[in-house]
């Protein structure tokens, strides 16, 4: 008898949970069909505005990139990086992958891509602002700064361009930091962003799902450390070739 009661209780409880979960899903579905939830816009805008207002910062990141083989099999590659930025026209990005160490330096006049291990570098004159330089690197040289959207001063417009749906998924913890978790849909990609709660609404994680490829591969970047008061020196944004380094060309796109 007692055990029967327990069973009934358990059944009732699990029903409650199921209903709660369904209600959440229904709410999410409703929010989706309603386009972009105002709260999602608001949280994202607060974050992009905050980052745009930071004149100098560094971000240590961990990236994963999935590729899809002809067979459909997905393979994930990992790298870590540090991005140092000083608005309006200085950037240094260092990346350490499985095989290659690479340094990208923009000093406001030229950009340099260097593989120190192989002692080679290429250098080319570049536009005078961070935003124009990123455009130039991407359209002329085919160099994509992963998650580079976030660096632009008008990051919000760039991210939201073409977005059809957006919701606040809920709360989440990324690298030990309490965040708001947002999810957006655009014609050929879905993306999710986790934004730190509190006075400094920094992006903590970004996941991009490419929908128009088989098996929808993902790119993810997690910021393991933000520093909004970094110390830069003369060398940070200046490229000096190491002894014996050879200069090579960029192939035009």
């Amino acid at each position, binding site marked *: 008898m007692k055990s029967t009661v327990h069973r009934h209780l358990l059944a009732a409880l699990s029903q409650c949970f199921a209903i709660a979960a369904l209600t959440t899903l229904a709410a999410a579905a409703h929010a989706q069909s309603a386009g972009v939830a105002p709260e999602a816009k608001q949280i994202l805008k607060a974050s992009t505005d905050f980052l745009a207002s930071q004149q100098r910062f560094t971000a240590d990141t961990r990236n994963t*990139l*999935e590729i*899809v083989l002809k067979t459909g099999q997905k393979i994930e590659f990992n790298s870590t990086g540090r991005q140092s930025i000083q608005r309006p026209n200085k950037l240094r990005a260092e990346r350490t992958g499985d095989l290659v160490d690479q340094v990208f330096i923009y000093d406001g006049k030229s950009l340099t*891509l260097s593989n120190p291990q192989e002692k080679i570098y290429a250098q080319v004159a570049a536009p005078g602002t961070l935003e124009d330089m990123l455009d130039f690197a991407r359209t002329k040289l085919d160099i*994509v700064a992963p998650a580079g959207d976030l660096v632009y001063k008008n990051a919000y417009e760039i991210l939201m361009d073409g977005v059809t749906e957006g919701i606040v998924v809920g709360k989440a913890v990324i690298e030990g930091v309490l965040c708001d978790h947002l999810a957006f849909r655009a014609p050929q990609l879905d993306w999710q962003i986790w934004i730190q709660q509190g006075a400094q609404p920094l992006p903590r994680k970004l996941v991009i799902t490419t929908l128009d*490829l088989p098996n929808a591969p993902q790119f993810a*970047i997690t910021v393991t450390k933000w520093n909004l008061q970094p110390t830069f020196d003369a060398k940070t944004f200046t490229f000096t070739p190491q002894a014996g380094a050879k200069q090579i060309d960029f192939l035009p796109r």
Partner: protein
Amino acid sequence: MTSIPRAKAFVLTIALPLLYLAGVSPDAPASLTLVSEARAVVGAPLTPVSAAGVARRTTRRVVVAESSATQASAATTATAQQQAATAQQQSATAQQQSATAQQQSATAQQQAAATRPAGAPAVGAVVATLPAGCKPETRSGVEYQNCGGVLYRAAFQGNNLVYVVQ
């Protein structure tokens, strides 16, 4: 550059923008024949160049043909020649290099022509790794890699270090 052992040669027929990022290992399995990678940016800058979210979301596709070290020259040749048309079309880019580069490579080609081995990879083909046994060689102040009589010139294609067949 020559000190880096290259176990395998990958012949690229299409721009391979983020091979570095992807970090496809020279020891990667032979099944790495056609590779597509996830996008790493959400949007493009709202410049006149980008047709509002259409052009920017063009998927990057990557073709990688694999060959083992022992068959490096033969296989590279075969694949490179099959794909030469594509490679040359798409790296009309590669051929539209700066005037100096073209002059230099023209010189190099002339010089190489005499000794160019039969079945050498197509001129203008872009490879991610060199065949085994290359030696640096400077001509007209430009450094090339001489791999069994075929000259390769290092360049960055996007983030990737590649070699252009001269």
